[in-house]
């Protein structure tokens, strides 16, 4: 793609989406292949402004941490699948941001997956909900009970008691007692 064409298309996209100037400057400061790859992504998935800003930040951080270019990150197979997929553009835009989060926080995502698998494995009855801290930013495990009437409440409390060992294991995992 011609350098001048890319820049004029970036400026047009930014104007249409009312992208704040600071983000436009960051975009234009990227290497030629990075800004072109980002433009292709933004146009193809019809990213909203907020999604674009989030994606740009995640891409910059992944690229720096992994010693790769932004174009290289966008060329990864899991990202290409989303870019070239057949679903709706808004749906794929959402998937892109989610996939970038996975790439930015791979160990966090794996740990959350393991914890969720453990929770599902407990097969707790409806009415009991195990809530993990947001982004595992603390070690607090919350257990919510929703009951209508004393009998149901008692039944749910008994269920928690029966699953105490499993719940304890999840609490320990939150404190690092597992491979991360």
């Amino acid at each position, binding site marked *: 793609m011609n350098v001048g064409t890319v820049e004029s298309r970036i400026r047009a996209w930014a104007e249409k989406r009312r992208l704040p100037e600071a983000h436009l400057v960051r975009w234009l400061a990227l290497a030629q292949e990075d800004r072109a790859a980002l433009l292709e992504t933004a146009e193809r998935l019809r990213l909203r402004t907020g999604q674009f800003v989030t994606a740009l930040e995640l891409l910059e951080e992944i690229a*720096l*941490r992994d010693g790769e270019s932004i174009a290289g990150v966008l060329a990864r197979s899991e990202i290409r699948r989303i870019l070239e997929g057949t679903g709706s553009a808004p749906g794929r835009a959402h998937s892109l941001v989610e996939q970038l989060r996975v790439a930015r926080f791979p160990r966090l995502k794996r740990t959350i997956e393991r914890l969720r698998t453990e929770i599902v494995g407990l097969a707790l009855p409806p009415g009991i909900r195990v809530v993990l801290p947001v982004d595992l*930013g*603390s*070690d607090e495990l919350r257990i919510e009970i929703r009951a209508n009437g004393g009998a149901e409440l008692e039944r749910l409390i008994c269920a928690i008691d029966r699953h105490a060992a499993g719940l304890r294991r999840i609490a320990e995992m939150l404190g*690092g007692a*597992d491979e*991360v």
Partner: protein
Amino acid sequence: MKFELDVVLIEERCRSSALAARLASAVAPEVEVRYVPDGRESARPLAGERDPFAAAKRRLVVMERRAPFLMGCPAGSAEFACCGYLVLVTASNCPMDCSYCFLQEYVADNPGLQVYANYAAAFDELERLGRSAPGRSFRVGTGELADSLAFDTLTAISRDLVEYFAQRENLLLELKTKTDEVGNLLTMDPCGRTLVSWTLSPTRVYESSEHRTAPPAARIEAARGVLEAGYKVGFHLDPLIAYPEAEHDYGELIENLFDVIPPQRISFVSMGGLRMTPALRAVARRRFPGDPMLLAGEEVLGRDGRMRSFTPLRMRLFASIRARIERRAPKMPLYLCMESASAYERVFGATPATPAALGERLVGR
């Protein structure tokens, strides 16, 4: 002195101070020395600089401190299991430039390097502290808002401090540094009342993030030197950065340390995870856009408004380092910095002591 200065600004009211005289005669001839009416103005960020914080690190202001010298550790909080550390502010800001440094946010409004010519007034505050709680011991350090030894070849403040503390039974001085500038210390007898501590990081973190500091091996070698001269030594593994190879690298660092310094002669080792407010992180990312260590630990926002590695990852790294240390030094006093009581319990399997009790334990060894 390894740090380059452009100018030394001496506040008029400090013109005849011993510190001003020492500095004026010790700085390199190409460094301009000027007198200014108010050092506080000179310490402010300069307009028009692309990176005012970096520019301020080349401007040393000798001035009078108007606020008390002694304060509680700024990292201390009821939310955390703290160590009872007290801070003696003899200087502010640091000529080194670690990309994660909290001073980038903490002293952003007055980033000029400051040394306080009236630091002897701190001794009155220390006298009052010592008398305030007979029977208690206090650990007092100068390395929180500045590196304790970075300018010591110019200022020689350490000599007066070491001499003062040498005569105090219930006060322990901690000089915290990332340098190997221990020349002045080697000429003094601390009488067991001064501890020199080093922040240690693996080479990978040092090379990526700890700009203009001494290499880890040089810090450990300097520690060996002061130990032989009669000082106590301690080490801060802080900030721990939970990058993917961290467990291996910190383990290797600990082995290297214990190969040079016998663990039974180390007073304590502290651990603290990298933590940054979002504002600090933004400043650090802007100033050091190419430092991957600022992103390597998968930091997320916690309840106290700081970003740290997500909890299981951080706890696991603490536990792994603890195990590595205790393999060779089962009785090593260890503590966590800026972590909650529940984190302390997870890592050590016990309820944390009160700040006063932990402080006493660290002073006593």
